[in-house]
Structures are given as structure tokens and as C-alpha cells.
């Protein structure tokens, strides 16, 4: 028996020697692994720079033909018709109309949903509601577009007989439904990550849930709630298919939700659906509009994350 153990020990020792002899080679391999993984990580940076470079390049080419002032401050967008005019404001106004409408739907509803989940719903209700909200968040936007066109718009038609087939209201509602789960889950995270003792402190003073929510939880979690709103709005700005399908393709500056409008995203889709050759001014308009879109969403995301971090500072 003892002999047997000795044998095993010896072979183990041999193995470890073998291992040591290889160790220089392994170190080389270790840095090879590190290098290739680093390359993977670099791809994300390359992506960002490519986006900036390509949007920048095509936009500059575009500005060689269209003065930057005409683009940024022009109030008429008719790049596909003669005589062409390239004022981006109608597209921005269309986008804002959708943003305002969808925020009016999703911000109060999302916040109230998160409050319901955090304060009132029992564990069983939560187990039903949360997955359903996740499903709502995961449904592709083209499906929401179909829903807007075949359900929401006909219903709106019953309330507002004068409404156009494609209209900003239907688009706003459907985009609101799409960003609602994001708002409710971020707000829920924001409030449930507060120390439990804060809530208890409020209840121990004889406050009702309503009072605890509005004068303790919401104000304390406010930076993060605002971050949720900003991030959701940034998503609404970039939302494409639902708006293409529901809100139409009529670039105009209007505040009337019952009319057809065009957003920045739906303009890009409209051009892409036609057969535009690379290099033409129509092709470049897509990138110029895309650049505006990119800058807007990027700025909002950065601001959103700033708010989020400030929150972490305040709660130690």
C-alpha cells in the first residue's frame, strides 16, 4: 500500500516538473490570449469611431452642397422633390412631437407602475406583472407598428373622426407603450435600491404609502428616476419602425397630433426603401440626418448616466 502511494507521488512530481519546463511557453501563451481578447474589446472602440467617422464624412460632403445654416435652421424638408430644400427642422419637430406624446403616455404610467410594483403588489402579483412587462419590452418594433395601424388608429378614428390614416397620435401612443417597460423597470430599480431603513423610517412615523412614496422615495431616488426618463426619451427619439408605420411620411412643422408627420428616423427609412445610389445628395441626407440623431441620443445618454451616478454619490 505504502509503495503504491509512493509511486503516485513520484509520478505527480514528474508531472509538475513537466509543467515547470513548459512554463516559459505558457507565459507566452498567456499574453497571446490577453492580446486576442484585447483585440475583441478594441472592436467596440473601432465601431464607435467608424460611426463618428462615417456620419462625419458624409455629413461634410453634404454640407459642400447644402449650406449648414440651411440644413439646421431651414423649415422646409423636400429633398426628394424638385426644387429640393434641406431644412431639417420639420423632421426634428416631427421627432419631438412623438417624444412629447410618448412621454405623456409613458412617464406617468411607467412611474405609477413602478410604484405599484414596489409598494402595493404582493409577491404573486409581481411574479405575473414583471415577466409581462419584460415581454412588452421584447416585442419587435415592427409588431408595434402593425398594432398601431390595425388597432390603435381605428380606435382613435372613432374618437377623432377627422384623424388622418397616418398620424402622430397613434405613433406617440405606440412608442409610449414601447418605452413604458423601460421606465417602470428603471424606476423600480431606483426606488428598491434605496436603503430599506428609509422607507421604514417613514412608515414608523405613521405615514401612508402615498406619503412615503411621494415625499421620501421619489425625491430621494429622483436623480435616478430622471435618468430613467432621459434614457427612455433617448430611445423614443431613435425609435423607427413603429413611427414609420403609424405616423406617416409628411415632413411638416405641426403641433397637431391628428396629422401625418415625419421623424428623422422615418425619413432615413423612406430613402432606403427607394433605390438611392451611393454618393448622391439623397444618400448623404440620410447620413446628415443620422448624425443629428446620433448626437441627440448620445448627449441624452451621457446626461442620463451622469444623473444615475450622482444618485450613487448621494446614497453614500
Amino acid at each position, binding site marked *: 500500500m505504502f509503495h503504491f502511494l509512493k509511486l503516485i507521488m513520484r509520478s505527480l512530481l514528474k508531472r*509538475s516538473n513537466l*509543467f515547470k519546463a513548459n512554463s516559459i511557453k505558457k*507565459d507566452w*501563451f*498567456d499574453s497571446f*490570449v490577453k492580446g*486576442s*481578447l484585447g483585440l*475583441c*474589446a478594441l*472592436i*467596440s472602440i473601432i*465601431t*464607435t469611431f467608424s*460611426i463618428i467617422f*462615417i*456620419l462625419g464624412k458624409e455629413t461634410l460632403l453634404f454640407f459642400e452642397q447644402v449650406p449648414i445654416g440651411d440644413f439646421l435652421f431651414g423649415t422646409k424638408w423636400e429633398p426628394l422633390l424638385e426644387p429640393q430644400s434641406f431644412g431639417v427642422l420639420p423632421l426634428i419637430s416631427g421627432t419631438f412631437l412623438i417624444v412629447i406624446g410618448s412621454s405623456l403616455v409613458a412617464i406617468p404610467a411607467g412611474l*405609477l*407602475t413602478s410604484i*405599484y410594483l414596489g409598494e*402595493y403588489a404582493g409577491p404573486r402579483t409581481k411574479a405575473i*406583472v414583471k415577466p*409581462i*412587462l419584460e*415581454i*412588452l419590452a421584447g*416585442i*419587435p*418594433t*415592427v*409588431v408595434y*407598428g*402593425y398594432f398601431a395601424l*390595425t*388597432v390603435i388608429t381605428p380606435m382613435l378614428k372613432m374618437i377623432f373622426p377627422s384623424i388622418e390614416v397616418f398620424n402622430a397620435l397613434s405613433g406617440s401612443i405606440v412608442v409610449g*407603450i414601447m418605452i413604458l*417597460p423601460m421606465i417602470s423597470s428603471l424606476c423600480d430599480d431606483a426606488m428598491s435600491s434605496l436603503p430599506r431603513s428609509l422607507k421604514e423610517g417613514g412608515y414608523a412615523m405613521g405615514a*401612508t*404609502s*402615498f*406619503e412615503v412614496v411621494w415625499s421620501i422615495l421619489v425625491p430621494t431616488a429622483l436623480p435616478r428616476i430622471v435618468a430613467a426618463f432621459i*434614457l427612455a426619451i*433617448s430611445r423614443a427619439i*431613435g425609435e*423607427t*419602425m413603429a413611427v414609420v*408605420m403609424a405616423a406617416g411620411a409628411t415632413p411638416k412643422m405641426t403641433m397637431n397630433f391628428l396629422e401625418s408627420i415625419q421623424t428623422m*428616423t422615418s425619413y*432615413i*427609412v423612406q430613402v*432606403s*426603401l427607394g433605390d438611392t445610389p*451611393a454618393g448622391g445628395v439623397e444618400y448623404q441626407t440620410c*447620413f446628415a440626418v*443620422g448624425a443629428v440623431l*446620433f448626437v441627440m441620443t*448620445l448627449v441624452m*445618454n*451621457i446626461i442620463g*448616466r451622469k444623473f444615475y451616478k450622482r444618485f450613487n454619490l448621494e446614497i453614500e
Partner: protein
Amino acid sequence: MSLRRRRLTEKCFKIATALITWSSIAILGVLVFQILKEGMQWVDWQFITSLPSRKAEKAGIYTAIWGSFYLMITTMLFALPTGIGAAIFLEEYGGKSRLSRFIDVNVANLAGVPSIVYGLLGLAVFVNLFGFGRSVISGGLTLGLLVLPVIIITTRGAIRSVPKSIPQAAYALGAKKWQVIFFHTLPYALPGILTGVILSVSRAIGETAPLIIVGAAAYVAFVPESLLDEFTALPIQIFNWTSRPQEVFHSLSAGGIIILLSVMLTMNSVAIFFRHKTQRSRNG
């Protein structure tokens, strides 16, 4: 305020929050009902195996299904190794260096870029610069870039949730860093990584706008045979049918939606099953 009024406010508020919450669930109900009511009549074997057609009763989603399938293969062949590799780098090698912090912020920003901007990137780089044209590979790579941040973020989360004791035990046995990562950390994180991957596929398969930008065709009469062939995809087909004025095509697109949502639902259930199973086995 009197106690009675406070109680009343409380009650009204509670009812309001409940109403709002349940109405979003009702919306999901209406959506599902509408889709089933309109689309169920079309969903059969013929629908799945027929080419698109101008006549509604003959139309099917054969090319769209195969298009989506090849797209997802391309997307994942690119995004899976890259995303997981990047995540390992950031978690295990990055440390707190300036570069890794920069990549970190960069990934977070990329995750917030609208999908249509990825479409523009794909159009300029893959379609025109690389000369891939309006092909499966252009679409697949574009979607790959799109889901990359999602894969990186979820994989990092999965790696981070590996208990410290596991790599430490391996190091204590004299293992090299790469051995620790590939033989101990990654296998433990695998269920979490898989969940993230499945979720990213289910996001990619529903993406429409970037594919339109890189030029998915509305009508494709054959299944792509090479990566450089033109293609259509399920969401493109749905969009196409919904945009037609005739009601009958709307109901066809509901049929397409049923297929698309079933695929996504299946994937999500698999992901949830995975998560559940590993949680159970790890909690003993």
C-alpha cells in the same frame, strides 16, 4: 389633513397605480388577441413553405424564414466570440486602467445608439466600402455590431457573479491565468452567458430598420445560397405586408408575426429555463 382624507387619498392612489399597471397588461392581451384573430387563419405548413407572392392566398414566408436564419448565423458567428472575448478582457485583464475604463464607457454608449444608426454604418462600411453589397453578410455583420454591447454587458455580469473562491482555488493549484479563465471561470459563468446570448439573438431577429437601411429586399424568390446573396427577413416581410393598403395583406402579416413571436417566445423560455435550472442546482 384629517386621517380620513389621508386614508381616502391613499386608497385612490393605490387604485390608480393598480389600474395603470393592469391596463398595460390588457394592452398586451389586446395585441395578442388581434394577432391571433387575424393571423391564425394563415398559419399552416403551406404558409411556412411558400414563396412570397402577389396573391395573398398563395403567399408564404419561406424565403423570409431562411433569410432570418442565415442572418442570425452570421450575426452570432461574428458577435459571439467578439462579445465574449471583449467581456473577458474587460473583466479579467482590464483592471482599472484608463483603456478599460474608456472601453467601458464606450460600450455603454454603443448600447444606447439607435439601431438605425447601425444600419447607416453597415450601409457605408459593409455594403459600399467592403463591397459586400446588399447581402446576407452585410445584414448579419450589421446586426452583429448592434448586439455586441448587449453580449458584452450580460457576459460581464455573468463573469462577475462567479464566486471569488473558484478562480482562487484554481490559482492555488498553480494554474495559469488563461487556464483559470477558460477551465474554471467561464464554465461556471456559462449559463449566465448563454442567457444573455439567447436574449441578444431574440433582439436581433426582430430588428427591422437596420436591415432596411442595408438593403434587405422586399421580394426575394429564392433562399440565399451564399453569404453574398440578397436576402429578406421575417420582420422585413411583416413590414412589407403591413405597408400594403389591402386588408388581406395585413392579416398575412399577422400570420408572419405569429411565427416571429413564437420563435422569440421559444428562445426566451429556453433562456428562463436555463437560468432557473442553474439557480436551482447551485442553491443545492
